[in-house]
C-alpha cells in the first residue's frame, strides 16, 4: 500500500447555492483496480459526490479531493479529467454529437491526440463495448441500451484509470442490463458505480459504500453489508435475492 490511492476524498462538504447540504464530511479512498459501489436513497448525495471526482464541482479546498495523489485544482483539472472518466446517468446528456464516431472521438480530440491515434482509440473503445460498426449512426437512432454502451465508449476512448458511472443500469431491460454488467466486469479500470441496482452491486463490486443524507454511513465488503437487513432497510435499500439465498 505504498502507492497513493487513486481517489482520496478528505472531509468533503458541499452546500448547494440554495443552502441544501448535499455532502457532509465525506471521507473516501479508492485504491487501484478496486470496484466500489456507491449506494443510498435518492437525494443522498451520490451524484454530487461523483461530480467532485473530475472537478465538475470543486471542493472549497483543493486537498479535499485528490486524484492519483494530486489535489484537484485549476492546474490539475485537465489531467484529472483524463484519468477519471465520468459516465452520466442519461446518455442523451453524454451523447451530444451528430454521429457516434464524433461523440467517441470528442474526448481524445480535446485531449490533443493525433488524428491517427484518435481513430484507433475510437475503433478500440467501440469494439470494447460491442458497438463496432455504429460509427456513422446518429445517437438519436440508437436504443437506450446502445446509447449507454456508446456513452461508456466515449469515456473509455480517453483511457482513464478510473471509470465513474452514475446509474448505469437504470431503465435497461433485463438482457441489456445483464450485457452491461458483463461488459463492466471485463474492464480493467478502477470502478466507482453509483446505483440503486443491488443485484448489479452484488455481481460486480466487492466493496460497498452507503451514503445517506450526505454522510457515509457504512463502508465495507459487499457480502457483509448487503446481508445486513436492518442496515439496508434503515437507509431505504433492499437486499438482493442473491444475498438472501447465500
Amino acid at each position: 500500500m505504498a502507492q497513493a490511492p487513486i481517489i482520496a476524498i478528505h472531509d468533503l462538504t458541499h452546500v448547494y447555492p440554495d443552502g441544501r447540504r448535499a455532502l457532509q464530511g465525506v471521507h473516501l479512498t479508492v485504491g487501484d483496480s478496486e470496484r466500489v459501489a456507491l449506494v443510498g436513497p435518492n437525494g443522498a448525495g451520490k451524484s454530487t459526490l461523483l461530480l467532485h471526482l473530475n472537478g465538475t464541482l470543486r471542493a472549497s479546498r483543493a486537498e479535499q479531493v485528490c486524484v492519483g495523489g494530486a489535489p484537484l485544482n485549476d492546474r490539475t483539472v485537465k489531467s484529472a479529467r483524463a484519468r477519471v472518466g465520468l459516465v452520466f446517468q442519461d446518455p442523451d446528456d453524454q451523447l451530444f454529437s451528430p454521429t457516434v464516431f464524433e461523440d467517441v472521438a470528442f474526448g481524445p480530440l480535446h485531449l490533443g491526440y493525433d488524428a491517427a491515434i484518435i481513430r484507433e482509440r475510437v475503433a478500440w473503445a467501440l469494439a470494447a463495448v460491442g458497438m463496432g460498426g455504429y460509427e456513422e449512426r446518429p445517437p438519436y437512432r440508437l436504443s437506450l441500451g446502445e446509447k449507454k454502451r456508446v456513452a461508456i465508449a466515449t469515456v473509455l476512448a480517453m483511457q482513464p484509470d478510473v471509470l465513474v458511472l452514475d446509474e448505469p443500469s437504470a431503465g435497461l431491460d433485463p438482457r441489456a442490463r445483464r450485457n452491461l454488467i458483463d461488459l463492466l466486469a471485463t474492464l480493467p479500470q478502477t470502478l466507482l458505480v453509483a446505483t440503486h441496482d443491488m443485484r448489479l452491486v452484488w455481481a460486480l463490486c466487492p466493496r460497498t459504500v452507503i451514503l445517506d443524507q450526505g454522510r457515509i454511513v457504512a463502508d465495507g465488503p459487499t457480502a457483509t453489508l448487503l446481508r445486513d437487513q436492518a442496515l439496508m432497510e434503515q437507509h431505504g435499500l433492499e437486499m438482493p435475492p442473491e444475498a438472501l439465498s447465500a
Partner: protein
Amino acid sequence: MQQMLLDPYYPTASAVHELEPRLKLVCVLAYIVAATALPTAYWPGYIALAALAAVAIVGARMPLGLVLGRTAIALPFVGVVALSVPFTRGGAVLWSGSLLGLPLAITAEGQGLFLSILAKSWLSVLLVGVLVATTPMSRVLGALRALRVPAVLVTTIALMYRYLFVLVAEAGRLHVARESRSVGKGGSVGWRARVLGGMVGSLFIRSYERSERVYAAMLSRGFDGEVQSLDEQHWTARDTLLLAAWFALLLPIVLVGRIPV
C-alpha cells in the same frame, strides 16, 4: 414516427447523394442568392430556376410527393409574413373593400410582389430540401466547418439539431401525461392555454437543466471552450467543374432578368 419527420435525410443511392457536401452547400447558397436577386414578377426567371430545382430533385431520386409535402410546410410561414404586402403597395387597384370599417385595396403591384415572395421562398426551400435529404446532417455540419463558418455557430446548430429529438420526445411525454389526466377532453380555452403555458415552462426548465448536464459532460471529456473536429474533405477537380457549371447556369438567368429591356 416523429423521428422520421425530424430527420430529413432520405437514404437512397443517387448522383446528388454522392456529391461533395461543400459543393452542394455552395450551390444551394448561390441558388438562393440568385432567386433573391431576380426582379419581382419576372416569371421566366422563376421558371428557369424551377427547372434547375427539378433537375436536382430528379438527380437525387426523391419522390415528388415527398419533396412537395416537405416544402409545403414552409409556405404558411412565408405566407403569413407576406400577407400584408398586396394591401400596402401603391398602384393599379384590382379589388377594394373594407374590413371593420377600414378601407382595403389590393393592387396589381402588391399582388405581383406577394406571389414573387412566395415563389422565391418556395424555390429556395426546395433546394435546401434537396440538400438535407441527400446529405446526412453530420456532413452538412462538416461542410459548414470546412467553409470556415465560425465554430461557435456550427456547434450551436449541431447541438440544436441533436437536442431537437430529445425535446420532441419530452414534449411528447408531457402531452401524453396531460392527455391521460384530462381524459382526452379539453376544458375552456383559458384552461387549455394555462395547461399549455405550464407545459412550455416545464419544457424550458427541463431543457435548461439538461444544458447544464450536457455542458458538464463536455467538460468531463476535456472540453475547454475550443471546438475541435476531425473532418476529412475531398475536393476534386470534378467538383470545381460542377461548381463552375452551376454558376454558368445561374448567372445568365439573373443577368437577363436584371438587364432593362
